[in-house]
């Protein structure tokens, strides 16, 4: 029988799964506005934010929620080869299989031939990896209004993607995702644990311990998941070595949080 710590550890595995989506007030309202934007006659929707703010989770959730009612296609990893990109879209959206090379002109001919009652939505994750040339083609494709694009980008400090000219003119909706606040992080952790029936573990997270976690991770979901995975790993190790009595289990001690942060590299020790 696996201990509560092992179960709790698995909750924080870094996997993007729509089932693991945690409803938070602010996040829910953003998600709702994204859903609403898709219904609008927009060419392109940009979802941006720092790594680990939940962009991929948003796309996944959106795909899961809308796939039953709408023609929606999710590309989690970027297709960097241009011909491959057109071929994939031609096959998935228009049902046209192409064996040879497919260039933009040929692909546009396919697009013009097809007509949909409802505009198909293409979700492109990690769009910052696409080349500028391909991004320009995507822009031209969205101009035809035959395909609607939702793209996610990393907001980097060096380069503000939104400032790029081709985005500024064509993006009709931009949604920024931010790190969680301390209270949001507490809800996030506890909801996640309670979803997996780890109620005892959820109760271990007091305001004090969550504040410490928030200070270390800045409310970044990915970092928090990483930290908590290691934290419960440590708990299970203490349990295995029969040293659980040496540490507090009624609440998460700062020592364990800091040890986890040191191990994950969030604290430079």
């Amino acid at each position: 029988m696996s201990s509560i710590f092992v179960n709790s550890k698995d909750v924080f595995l870094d996997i993007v799964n729509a089932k693991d989506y945690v409803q938070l007030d602010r996040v829910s309202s953003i998600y709702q506005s994204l859903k609403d934007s898709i219904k609008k006659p927009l060419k392109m929707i940009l979802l941006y934010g720092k790594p680990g703010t939940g962009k991929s989770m948003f796309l996944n959730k959106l795909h899961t929620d809308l796939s039953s009612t709408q023609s929606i296609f999710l590309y989690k990893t970027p297709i960097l080869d241009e011909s491959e990109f057109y071929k994939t879209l031609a096959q998935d959206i228009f049902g046209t299989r192409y064996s040879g090379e497919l260039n933009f002109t040929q692909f546009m001919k396919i697009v013009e031939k097809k007509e949909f009652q409802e505009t198909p939505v293409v979700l492109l994750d990690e769009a910052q990896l696409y080349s500028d040339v391909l991004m320009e083609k995507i822009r031209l494709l969205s101009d035809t209004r035959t395909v609607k694009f939702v793209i996610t980008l990393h907001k980097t400090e060096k380069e503000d993607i939104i400032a790029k000219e081709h985005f500024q003119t064509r993006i009709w909706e931009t949604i920024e995702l931010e790190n969680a606040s301390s209270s949001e992080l507490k809800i996030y952790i506890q909801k996640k644990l309670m979803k997996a029936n780890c109620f005892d573990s959820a109760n271990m997270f007091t305001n004090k311990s969550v504040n410490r976690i928030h200070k270390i991770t800045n409310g970044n979901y990915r970092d928090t998941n990483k930290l908590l995975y290691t934290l419960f790993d440590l708990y299970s190790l203490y349990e295995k070595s029969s040293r659980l009595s040496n540490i507090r289990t009624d609440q998460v001690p700062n020592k364990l949080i800091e040890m986890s942060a040191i191990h994950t590299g969030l604290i430079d020790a």
Partner: protein
Amino acid sequence: MLNLHELEQRWLRYKIKSYLPYLAIVLSVSVIFLSLFVFLREPSTPITKNITPIKAPVISPKPQVILKPKQPQVEKKVLTQKKELPQVQKEIIPSPRSTNKVILSPSLGFMKKMQTDQQPYYKNEHTNENNDVQIKAPTVTVVRDDIQHVEHPKIETVKKISITHKNTHNDIAEIISRFKKNNNPALSLFVAKKYYELGDYRQAYNYALITNQINQDIEVSWIIFTKSLVKLGEKKKAIKTLKQYIHQSHSNSAQILLDEIISGKFK
């Protein structure tokens, strides 16, 4: 794979490292406070600063030049009235001692002794009471005034006091310059006494300290030193110093002074 022991060690190092800045701040603040406390309690550093510049000789040729002509002047004046002087001295010696004004004459001898360098320090204590003696020119005039108006009322004595006071600083400067030359503790002690009388307790303290550094056995220097300390508001330090001296020397006068300081008689 997690290594609990290693991770605990790393965490401990991290904890120590994170507390270091606070520790440094606390330490530096306490050091500042401690040094401030010490600085405010003991004005020893500024005193030593005062001492060092004194040692540096600035005016060396003047004293001898001034002193020598002064003595001849005195002698000349005495000589010009050759016939009167012997009579005067005879008449003066008994009368001035009773009025405490004409006791200036022994100081001249003291000054001459200073020039010869090696003097017994303790003998000067008696001359201390006659500190005004330093001023030679005035003394002569005083003598002459007294000679002429031996039986006249006190109005003359007031004049005498003002004359001595005017020349005091010059004479101290003279003694200081001589002291710089020969480093005679009797001279510095004299200066200390003089400054004390003039109410310049800081300088009195300095010269008493200098005297003490040259010769620690001069009782008067200890007394001037502690008296100056009391006057400078350092009563505790004065008591402490006196106690130490009494412990070493078993001096009665030091004991009396200590009792006076403690009882508050001497302020």
